[in-house]
C-alpha cells in the first residue's frame, strides 16, 4: 500500500527534477485548464477566443520546431498553413472528402511545399536573411497565383458548403466541439514536439541552429536535417490550416497569405513564450490571442490601425524585456527553487 501511495508522488518528483519534463507538465496543466473553460464561458464570442488561442498554440509549435529548434529564419510560414486550409476546403467542397481526413492531407500537401522550399533554398544556398526573404517572396507569389486560380475560388475565395451539422463533416452547432478538436491537436503537437526535442533528430536540429559548420564536422548532414525540420513544421502548419478553415468556414488569398496573420497565428506565441523552448508556444499562446482580442475590443472603435500599433508595441516590449520569453523567466525561478531544495537537503 505504501508504495502505491508513494508512486504518484515520486512520479511528480521525477518530472519536477527535470526542466524539460516540467515544461511538458506545465503545458498539459494549461491545456487541462482550457478544457474546463466551457463550464464557465457560455458566450460564443469568448468561446471563439479560447478556440483560436488553442489553435494558435498548435500552429506556434509548428513554427517553434523550424525557427526555434533548427534555427531557420522562416518568416512567411503562413504559406504552409494556407496550403493546408485550401486543400481541406477544396477536398470537402469539391470532392466531399471528410475534413477528418482532409486536414491531414492538407498537412501532407503543405509538407510537400516544404520539400520544394527546402530544395530551392539549399540548391541556391539561401541562408538566414536570404532564406527569410525567399519565404516572403514565395508568399507574395502564391497570393497572386491563388487570386487568379478559379478552381480554388480566385479572388472571391472559398466558403465552406455549410449543410446540416454532423460529426463526420466536422461541422457543429456549438463551438465546444471545435475547442476539443483544437485541444486534441495541440496535445498531439506538444507530445510530438517533446519527442523531437529528446531524439537524435532534435539534437541535430539544435546543433545546426547553434553552429552549422560545427554540426557538419560531427557527421550531421545539415541539408537533410534542415529539410526535415522544415517539412515537419510545414506539415503541422498545414494541419493547423485545415482546422482553421473548418472553424472560420471561409478562406481567401489576402486573408491567409498575409504577414499580419502570419505574426499572430505562428510567430507571436513562441516568441512571447520563449523561442526554442518546450513550453514557449503554450505560455506565449495563452497571452497572445486573448491580449490581441482585448486590444481589439478596447481600441477597435478608434482610429483604424491603432489596434495593430498597440499589439506590435506589446510584442516589441515582450522581446526587449523577456528575450528568452515567459519560459526563460520561469526557468530562472525554477533554478532558484532547485538550488534551495538541494541546499535544504544538504543542511538536513
Amino acid at each position, binding site marked *: 500500500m505504501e508504495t502505491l501511495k508513494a508512486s504518484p508522488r515520486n512520479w511528480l518528483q521525477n518530472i519536477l527534477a527535470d526542466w524539460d519534463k516540467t515544461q511538458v507538465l506545465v503545458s498539459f496543466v494549461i491545456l487541462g485548464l482550457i478544457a474546463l473553460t466551457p463550464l464557465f464561458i457560455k458566450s460564443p464570442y469568448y468561446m471563439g477566443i479560447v478556440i483560436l488561442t488553442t489553435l494558435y498554440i498548435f500552429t506556434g509549435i509548428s513554427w517553434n520546431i523550424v525557427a526555434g529548434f533548427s534555427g531557420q529564419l522562416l518568416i512567411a510560414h503562413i504559406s504552409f498553413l494556407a496550403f493546408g486550409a485550401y486543400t481541406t476546403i477544396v477536398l470537402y467542397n469539391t470532392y466531399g472528402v471528410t475534413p477528418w481526413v482532409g486536414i491531414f492531407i492538407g498537412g501532407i500537401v503543405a509538407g510537400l511545399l516544404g520539400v520544394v522550399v527546402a530544395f530551392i533554398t539549399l540548391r541556391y544556398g539561401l541562408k538566414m536573411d536570404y532564406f527569410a526573404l525567399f519565404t516572403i517572396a514565395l508568399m507574395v507569389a502564391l497570393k497572386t497565383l491563388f487570386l487568379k486560380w478559379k478552381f480554388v475560388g480566385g479572388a472571391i475565395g472559398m466558403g465552406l458548403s455549410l449543410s446540416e451539422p454532423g460529426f463526420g463533416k466536422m461541422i457543429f452547432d456549438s463551438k465546444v466541439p471545435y475547442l476539443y478538436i483544437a485541444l486534441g491537436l495541440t496535445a498531439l503537437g506538444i507530445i510530438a514536439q517533446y519527442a523531437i526535442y529528446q531524439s*537524435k533528430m532534435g539534437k541535430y536540429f*539544435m*546543433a545546426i541552429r*547553434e*553552429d552549422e*559548420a*560545427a554540426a557538419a*564536422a*560531427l*557527421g550531421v548532414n545539415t541539408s537533410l536535417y534542415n529539410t526535415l525540420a522544415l517539412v515537419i513544421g510545414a506539415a503541422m502548419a498545414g494541419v493547423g490550416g485545415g482546422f482553421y478553415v473548418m472553424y472560420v468556414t471561409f478562406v481567401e488569398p489576402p486573408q491567409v497569405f498575409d504577414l499580419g496573420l502570419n505574426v499572430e497565428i505562428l510567430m507571436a506565441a513562441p516568441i512571447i513564450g520563449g523561442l526554442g523552448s518546450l513550453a514557449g508556444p503554450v505560455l506565449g499562446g495563452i497571452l497572445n490571442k486573448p491580449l490581441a482580442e482585448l486590444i481589439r475590443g478596447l481600441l477597435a472603435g478608434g482610429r483604424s490601425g491603432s489596434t495593430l500599433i498597440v499589439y506590435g508595441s506589446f510584442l516589441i516590449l515582450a522581446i526587449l524585456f523577456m528575450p528568452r520569453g515567459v519560459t526563460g523567466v520561469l526557468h530562472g525561478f525554477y533554478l532558484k527553487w532547485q538550488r534551495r531544495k538541494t541546499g535544504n537537503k544538504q543542511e538536513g
Partner: protein
Amino acid sequence: MTLLEAHNITKRFGGLVAVNDLSLSVSEGEILGMIGPNGAGKTTAFNMISGYYQPNEGRVIFDGKDITGLRPDQVCKLGLARTFQVVKPFPQLSVLDNVLVGAYNRTNDKQEAQQKAREILDFLGMGNMTEQLAGGLSVAGRKRLEIAKVLATGPKMILLDEAMAGLRPIETDEIIELVRQISQQGVALLLVEHVMKVIMSLADRIVVIHHGEKIAEGEPQAVVQDKAVIDAYLGEEVANVAG
C-alpha cells in the same frame, strides 16, 4: 599502412594560391605535425582534407577511399574528424548534449550515445560538468569540449587545428597528455600547431608549409635544424631551444 594521403592538392582563391601542389601522408596511429608561419595555408589544407573546401586540383585518399569533394559529414562518417581553430561549441546546449551530437555519428540509440558521451567526458575530466551550458565554459574547457566532440564521433583519425592555442602552460601540458593517450588508442592525428613544445613532444614527423608549399618534411629533430625552416618560420633562437 597509409591512412591519409593528400596528392598534389591545390587551392586558389581568385588570383591567390593559398595551397600549391601539397602532398602529405599519415600512417595509421601516426602523429603528423604541420607547422608554418601565419597565412602559410595550413588551415586551407586542413579545410580541403576535411571536406570544407573542394581542392582545385589534386586528390585526398582516406582509408583507401577517394574523399575529394565529399561533404564534411560524409568525411566524418568515414572516420576522419576535425576540430576548429576558433572553437565552435554549441553554446545553448549542455556539455553532455554537445558531445551527444558527436556520439550519434555511430549510433541511433539514445542510451548508447549517452553512455558513450559520458565515458568520453569522464576521460577528459569533464564528468562533473555534463549539465552545464557549453557557452559558460572557460577557454580551456571549450578546448577540451572540442576534443570530446570529435572523439565521440568514433574517428580513425583526428585533425586538430591549434587545439592548444591560448592555453596556459599547465593546461597545455594536460592537453598534450590527453592527445598522447588518444594516440595510444590507435587514433592517427594531424596537428596544426604554433606551440613548438607541443609539436616536439608529440609529433612522429613534421611537415613545414610556407607560402602554400611544403618546404620540409621529416623527423622533428631534423626538421628544426633545416636551414629553410629556420629562415621561414622558426628563427635561430627557437631552433636552438628546440634542438
